[in-house]
């Protein structure tokens, strides 16, 4: 067990706690905090795996962007209704069976494929990834730009339209 391992399992604990909050919490805001802790833990794990750029993006885009967007959603939907922001679950049995089935199948059948593999933790530098993004993946980069524009247009037209 190296220091990296300790950190890894530490982040794992944070993540499991976050997941637990999301899965069982009755309050939207707790679930959002759970998601935040998951995202932060993931950023930490990315850093451990020497994917520094990803870790930064994860913190900035997810924790900073997506989560804020979701919080907006929570506040907007909460604002319109006078009901308390408690959330119930439906069909927990079916959901649990499917989720557990998925988990067990993946662990039992697919997991063994990765048994003998360990991560080296040094896949490449930030510079290599940046270069790849602007050479090999230029097209994807441009398309991602268009995708963002489209989602902007789509989001705007849906959200701005008033009830007729």
């Amino acid at each position, binding site marked *: 067990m190296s220091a990296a391992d300790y950190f890894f399992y530490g982040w794992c604990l944070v993540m499991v706690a976050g997941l637990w909050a999301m899965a069982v919490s009755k309050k939207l805001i707790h679930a959002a905090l759970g998601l935040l802790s998951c995202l932060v833990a993931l950023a930490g794990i990315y850093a451990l795996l020497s994917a520094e750029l990803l870790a930064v993006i994860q913190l900035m885009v997810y924790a900073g962007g997506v989560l804020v967007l979701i919080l907006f959603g929570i506040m907007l939907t909460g604002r319109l209704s006078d009901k308390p922001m408690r959330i119930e679950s*439906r*069909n927990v049995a*079916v*959901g649990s069976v*499917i989720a557990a*089935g*998925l988990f067990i*199948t993946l662990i039992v*059948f697919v997991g063994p494929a990765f048994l003998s593999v360990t991560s080296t933790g040094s896949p490449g530098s930030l510079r290599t990834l940046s270069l790849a993004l602007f050479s090999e993946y230029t097209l994807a980069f441009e398309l991602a730009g268009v995708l963002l524009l489209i989602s902007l247009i789509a989001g705007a037209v849906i959200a701005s339209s008033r009830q007729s």
Partner: protein
Amino acid sequence: MNVASTDWNAWVPIALALPLVSFVVSFWMGPRYGWLVPLMATALLLAGWVCTTVILVDHSAGTSHFAVPWFSLGTDVIPIGWWLSPRSVTMLWVVYTISLLVHVYSIGYMAGEGGIARYFAWLGFFTFAMGGLVVSSNLLVTFCCWELVGLSSYRLIGHWHQQPAAGAAATKAFLVNRLGDIGLLVALMLLWSRAGTLDMPALTAMALSEETKTAVGLCVLLALAGKSAQFPLLHWLPDAMAGPTPVSALIHAATMVAAGVYLFVQLHFLFSADALAVAAVVGLLTLFVGGWGALTQFDVKKILAYSTISQLGLMVAGVALASPEAGFAHLFTHAFFKAGLFLGAGALIHAVSRHGHAPQQDIRHMGGLWQSHRLVLVCFAVCAASLAGMPLTSGFLSKEGLLLHVRHHSFYFGVMATASFVTTLYSARMVFYLLSPTPQAAATHPVPAIMQLPLFVLSVGSLFIGLSASPLSIQSWWPVFDAIESAPWVMVVSLAVLVVGVGVAWRLYRHRPTATLHARWVPQTWLDAAQKHIAVTPALQASRLTHHADRRWLDGVLHAASYGYVTCSFVIGWVDRVLIDGWVTTVTHAAKGGGKLFRSLVNGKIQSYLAWGMLALLSFMVWMLYQLAHR
């Protein structure tokens, strides 16, 4: 594939195009010049008929084949073209002739009816499709035309769409035909995969294995059973009588229903011995079911419909047992006399029906017309005589051809002679009712000359001179029938059957028995009686039988025959109801149940949609993983 054959004959496309032009122009002119449509359509068809006559004269002996590439499927080329043989040009001529006469007749019959442009348009379209079916050299094109005649038949049966019965009958006919079409489609695919071609001239030169021929033959048999109303797909034809009577004459008696038999004749070489045996059994069953049906009906159009079923069965059995030529000869003569019968029946219905009322089609109410409608009745009687196979008629010659070819099989010969007897019986019954002098209650209408003319032409065509110069031999004018011989003793047998048949009919129907007396011919009555006799009081039954035999042995024989018939029809009815209908019902129920199940899953709740999807994915995944792990 070799599609280089270029025996161009300009008359063929012209002949096919003229009815199509009639179809388009009729629709186009319909809204504004409705009165002109019948004349224009008839004129175009007359021109088409002239073309087919020219083709007939050109090709009465030799064959010719023309094909151009239609489209290609990978490296294989599907050609489109025609194949003219003595048989196909004869059939083409018959189609156009009957169609022309029906056009002429319809000018009078449909006068004052609604939707006349639509009617003539679809008549033209039908003629085009039927002509294409007859001359096409490629089975794929034949199949397309096959579908198109089904479509025009659907439209014409449902012509009077105000009547719910017409719509239902049209749908029924269409669906039953589709069931048969699947057979043809599978046959085409089998041929395509086994022979690699759908070109008929190429197929004739090909040696296919016996099992392929059996499979193809059975599939074609299914197709022709649908189109030609063979057992067990025959119930749509009587219902199709809901259409206008000239349509019944053209489509449901003379041409379209004969298309199945024509296809059988054309593809006879693709049938193995086993497939032919099945076809023979189907044909003979149809022959008797149709004959029995004709005997129990009082509606003149229904009688003729069942008679058509019976005659089609005879043709199928004839092609299967005797020879394609003999079957085709009967198809030829049947086209004339059955079209004549339908047109005659239409004229009589026209005469006795009151305007604004449901048409009077019951033969019990159609007597007493001799004074006013002599020509119509004579023509009708001549056609009926031809149907019965009276000497000096064309039906006599063609039926003899069929009997002659099976003379070595005493069983089949006996069966066919019996069938002949039944045919004579119902033909004579029909004629006795119509000719009887019992006064007609309602006032009668005159039949216009334009309706009498086609009737007259058809009745002349039903005489022997329509087929041959000699009243005793078929080998005369039509080279296609030269292979059919004549034998005096067979003529004697058919004559004897005829005499007996007419005699029995005279005994039974001379006094125009009404429904109460005729209840004994209706299967349910007999069925109840039989059950009572056999299961409840066997002694009573025995005493009654002896009583009957004691009184009149003929009655006894008739009763026995009736018992046999009733039993047979009961079995057939049971098979039809339980197996065929039952199968359909089961499938319908399964489809409905399945639909209901699948619809119940779509309950509007997005998360259950997701859950079903994920559950399906997960369970399939686990199952596959398990399979792979234990292999």
